[in-house]
């Protein structure tokens, strides 16, 4: 209960709620698009560097490799579950269901960053290699969703041959993958000494920048919800709330099998429970242009992201403690 309250009353969640409320009340407040993108790159560079420095201290072993393989397998599997549930419980057609499923197999890096803060506040430690796990979990879900969409009737709505190269670039070289993995390698090479030189920029202002970014995310989520809520039926909204829990339970199983620490397990669970709204929408516009962005974007950004940030994180930390050996 303390963790739930601490998460809810943390500055990042409160700034998110401020942005959400402002957008729902039709406030004219905006954060310039280019500035918001700069903030996102800053946050990814910062967590990539920190993760790389942790790895340079000898954090990467066979256990980390096993977690990475398990996480990739989970990211392949989640869209299949999400697609089946969407087809069973909602009126979404095959293409919309496949595109939405891709979002729920991939990850949200902002939720990952916010989870890192909540996990540290709960007194748990996390490992640097989880940043690499985050980057690795971006892509497999997109491949799974395309395989689903390329069966049967959905085939006509899938990517045209001439766009395949562009799609591969968008998926494999999107900003999250390039910046996260690039910063991770830079942090690993430069180590603790290198980090000390850039710490005044990448460590000290991190919390403040995260608040600013979450304010913008609140505005984006609120405006997306305001514009797109009519596209979502009750079954679809319910999916946006229960799918993260299903993903979290499966990830908790993976964490248990790998004997992960409570902090690492909480991060993995959060990654699995989060839904993408940066990398996957771009890939889906290229790969499945007939899928409606007003459904999958509104659902992942307007329903699942706020749920994870406000209610999900304390649940995931509790779940991680329950499945981790020796955790209190």
């Amino acid at each position, binding site marked *: 209960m303390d963790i739930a309250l601490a998460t809810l009353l943390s500055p990042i969640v409160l700034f998110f709620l401020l942005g959400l409320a402002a957008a729902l009340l039709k406030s004219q407040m*905006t*954060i310039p*698009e280019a500035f*918001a*993108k700069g903030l*996102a790159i800053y946050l990814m560079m910062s967590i990539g560097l920190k993760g790389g420095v942790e790895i340079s201290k000898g954090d990467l072993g066979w256990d980390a490799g096993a977690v990475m393989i398990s996480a990739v397998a989970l990211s392949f599997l989640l869209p299949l579950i999400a697609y089946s549930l969407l087809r069973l419980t909602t009126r979404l057609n095959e293409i919309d269901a496949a595109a939405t499923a891709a979002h729920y197999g991939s990850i949200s890096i902002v939720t990952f960053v916010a989870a890192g803060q909540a996990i540290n506040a709960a007194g748990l430690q996390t490992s640097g290699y989880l940043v690499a796990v985050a980057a690795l979990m971006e892509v497999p879900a997109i491949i799974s969703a395309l395989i689903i969409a390329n069966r049967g009737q959905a085939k006509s*709505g899938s990517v*045209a041959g*001439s*766009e395949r190269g*562009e799609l591969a670039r968008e998926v494999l070289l999107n900003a999250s993958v390039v910046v996260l993995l690039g910063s991770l390698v830079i942090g690993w090479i430069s180590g603790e000494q290198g980090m000390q030189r850039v710490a005044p920029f990448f460590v000290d202002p991190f919390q403040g920048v995260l608040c600013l970014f979450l304010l913008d*995310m609140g*505005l*984006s989520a609120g*405006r*997306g919800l305001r*514009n*797109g809520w*009519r*596209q979502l039926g009750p079954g679809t909204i319910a999916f946006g709330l229960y799918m993260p829990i299903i993903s979290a339970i499966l990830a908790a199983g993976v964490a248990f099998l790998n004997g992960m620490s409570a902090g690492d397990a909480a991060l993995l669970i959060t990654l699995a429970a989060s839904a993408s*709204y*940066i*990398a*996957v*929408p*771009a890939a*889906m*516009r*290229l790969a499945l*242009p*007939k899928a409606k*962005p*007003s459904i999958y*974007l509104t659902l992942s*950004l307007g329903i699942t992201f706020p749920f994870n940030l406000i209610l999900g994180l304390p649940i995931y930390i509790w779940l991680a403690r329950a499945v981790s050996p020796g955790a209190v």
Partner: protein
Amino acid sequence: MHTRLRLELIIERMAAKRACSVLEAAGLTGYTVLPAISGFGGATRWNRDTDMSASSDMVVIISIGADSQIRAALTELEGLLGSHIGVLTVGEVQVLRPHRF
């Protein structure tokens, strides 16, 4: 003044690169791509600032050319609009320097 055709294509950003390739293949000597701020269509209201991925952003592509060049581009662009969100219009315009189009 000389008569030419002006093609105006409002299309989602993710398909803009392909649309520009079509214009180049049709022999059009130039085009301009402008960002669209917001709009309404298909019962959905959209704004540039609601999507972090910018995948829902729309752009406006304007090109002026001879009748034969514009018509050569239309068939391919029609195919593109079959799968991507967009609106295409063509109209007559008067140009001062015909050799540039």
